[in-house]
């Protein structure tokens, strides 16, 4: 499996892998590290990946086992006693699909907003930028940014009420 094929077939599985790791570990940063390590491992084993029939199941199981190892280590350290949030492949897949559909819905809702409001919402709630950054990026005053964001949120909430998933 060359790098193009790897990118095409394995990298899109990152969302599900990240979600599963997030849920199992409860730590986004740690989940990112786990997923990245697993990708390095998968890259090193890419010659064997052609034999794998279900790549998504294989990758998710790898994440699951790695997370279980981490959780067991935590338990040995006696700092964490939480239950393992075990998700099946189907649950992970459903959650990934839900996330994707929600993100797509938001895209549609944002598309109906004016340009300034859409950019302000993206920067504030998706990119999680601070107000000063938005002021500089949109060349708006602080008050204008607050006003724009407030109006955009109100518009979105109204539109969401009309949408039934």
């Amino acid at each position: 499996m060359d790098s193009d094929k790897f990118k095409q077939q394995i990298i899109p599985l990152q969302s599900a892998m990240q979600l599963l790791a997030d849920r199992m570990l409860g730590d986004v940063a740690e989940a990112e590290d786990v997923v990245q390590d697993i990708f390095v491992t998968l890259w090193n084993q890419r010659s064997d990946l052609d034999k794998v029939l279900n790549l998504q199941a294989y990758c998710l199981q790898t994440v699951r086992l790695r997370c279980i190892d981490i959780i067991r280590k935590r338990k040995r350290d006696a700092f964490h006693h939480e239950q393992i949030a075990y998700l099946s492949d189907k649950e992970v897949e459903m959650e990934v699909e839900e996330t994707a559909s929600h993100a797509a819905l938001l895209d549609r809702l944002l598309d109906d907003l004016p340009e300034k409001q859409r950019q302000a919402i993206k920067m504030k709630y998706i990119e999680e930028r601070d107000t000063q950054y938005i002021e500089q990026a949109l060349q708006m005053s602080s008050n204008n940014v607050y006003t724009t964001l407030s109006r955009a949120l109100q518009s979105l909430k109204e539109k969401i009420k009309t949408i039934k998933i």
Partner: protein
Amino acid sequence: MNDTPDINKLFEAARRREADIRRQQQLSDMIDRLAKNEQKTESGKRKAKGGLFWTYAGIAASVLLLSIVGLRILSQGSTSSSQQQLIAKTKPHVESEEKSAESGEQRMESVVQVRRPNTSAVLAISETTAEVPSHGMQQNESEEDKTIIEMPVVLPDEPLLAEETQNGEQRTEDKDQDMYQHESNSPVVYERTSTRLVCGSGCRPEVRHNQEDTPSFAFTNISSTGTTIGIGSSGF
């Protein structure tokens, strides 16, 4: 499912998606780097293999060269040993030459038994060696060229008595003759039982009788080219 989505859920999903896109991009870059590193490693390995190949080739060539040189040295050594053998073969030749040169001083070895006439009792045995002067023996004469000639010696038919001078005085110079003189009244016979002429090559001995009818030997030293290079003689 008729559920109105929470706006925060939508934002959360959008954030997750954006984060996933960012992470996937990072992973894609990481894969590119890994692929590049692998290519570098592969090329490095290939270069290393190539270098290793040339290293081995160099070592093999060096070993081959050393082997050839060693064989040459050994062959030279064997040549030198063969030369030594040749020298060893030649040395006896030289020694023989030396011996021949020594034997150029031809000598007459004779054994004389002194006994009473008509008896086998030997009173005394005298072994004498007469050196024959040599003149300019050829240096390249070999041992094989040395000739030892044993020949019968012509002796006077009459038994020689213990020699008396014409004045009737007995000689007392010779110790052997002293022994003879001890029984002066009894006749004794001295008999030369063997005479050996030892001379080098080119020595052509011939037996002559001198005026006293005493056998003597004349030697003509002849070089390998046939040239007469010296004349010697010996008599008794």
